[in-house]
């Protein structure tokens, strides 16, 4: 669900870079201590999986795309900080190698998908843990898709209010919230279900390999 280059005004992406910089410093701090020759290959493997999932995308009329994300998996197995840093790397590679997403939109995409997605996954998993492992992991993955989708839809939808020409024509993304909210959120309800199923499958793989405990 990345936002591509050229859709966001500088009034949006420059402050977003400020916020993301703080979040990146926070995430990177202490990350090195958690990485060793056992966790790094796993992180690299799931990061590459997230990268691959993100490239199978369907353009949505709301100005973004629909695809699985994989950030819930990263967050549930490695924690929010590692997931945020790893997903930022995924977004940079997708932007520069495939033109999917973009560098001007990187901070917004990273904050929405990488940070909010990871926080949603970990938060929902903890809240719903008493309801059972499969249910809580599935719901965590669903939330990690839907919450970022909502944020992306709002950021896109406010662009016509933020940046207009003198004649009122939009300078950047042209649709308002009345279009972006349904256009982005409705397909992501279904994508969230797919992501939940995929996350449960890979989570079980991770359990079999004893990467995670219940």
């Amino acid at each position, binding site marked *: 669900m990345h936002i591509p280059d050229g859709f966001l005004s500088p009034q949006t992406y420059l402050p977003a870079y400020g916020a993301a910089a703080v979040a990146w410093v926070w995430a990177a701090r202490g990350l090195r201590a958690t990485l060793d020759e056992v966790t790094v290959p796993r992180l690299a493997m799931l*990061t590459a999986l997230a990268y691959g999932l993100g490239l199978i995308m369907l353009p949505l009329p709301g100005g973004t795309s629909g695809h699985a994300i994989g950030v819930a998996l990263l967050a549930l197995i490695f924690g929010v900080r590692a997931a945020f840093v790893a997903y930022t790397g995924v977004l940079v590679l997708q932007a520069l190698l*495939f033109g999917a997403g973009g560098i001007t939109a990187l901070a917004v995409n990273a904050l929405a998908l990488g940070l909010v997605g990871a926080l949603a996954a970990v938060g929902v998993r903890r809240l719903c843990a008493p309801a059972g492992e499969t249910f809580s992991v599935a719901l965590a993955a669903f939330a990690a898709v839907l919450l970022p989708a909502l944020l992306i839809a709002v950021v896109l939808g406010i662009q016509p209010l933020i940046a207009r020409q003198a004649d009122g024509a939009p300078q950047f993304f042209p*649709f308002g919230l009345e279009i972006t909210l349904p256009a982005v959120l409705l397909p992501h309800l279904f994508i969230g279900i797919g992501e939940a199923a995929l996350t449960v499958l890979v989570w079980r793989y991770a359990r079999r390999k004893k990467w995670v405990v219940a």
Partner: protein
Amino acid sequence: MGGGVNPARRWFLAYAAALVAASCVHLPALLAAALGIALVAAGRMRWQLLKRSLLALAVFNLSVSLGYTLVALWQQNFVAETLLLLNLRALLMVFLGFWLVSRIDLLALLAGWPTLSLCATLAIGQIRAYQRVLEEFRMAFASRNPQPPRLIDRARHAGTQGGALLDKSLTSAGEVALAMRSRGAFDA
């Protein structure tokens, strides 16, 4: 050895500045001129880069452009210049991105940040490992199925492929990590 900012980072900073500049320009003619200059400066790679940029742009901007055209025509406030502005700006930005990647080594950008370099090296290695394994599986599946496979065969194949992909990828990442450890990559 020369000091100062490494060349990859210098190119990246120039690219970032160009992106900010492009997003502050709202005249299609100026953006078209900038794209023209970038095309000339890109040298022999220009048409290949432009083709890739147009393909990437089509994925996102086509649906937005069509949507904008339909909605604006319906609301009777269609402005062709807006459509041109959106697409030219996005095309210029995507072109600059692909041009940058054709000029620099992405890992050189991370020089000086060992943890990020380590993760990026491994992740890029894994992406290549995935590509290789997927291609091998695709060819093996095609060779076993001279007739179009049934849905159940496809599902079974996808399941086996997924498991093998994760196992192979983990093994290869583990080997790389051990090699990096022997070279001191995990030393504090």
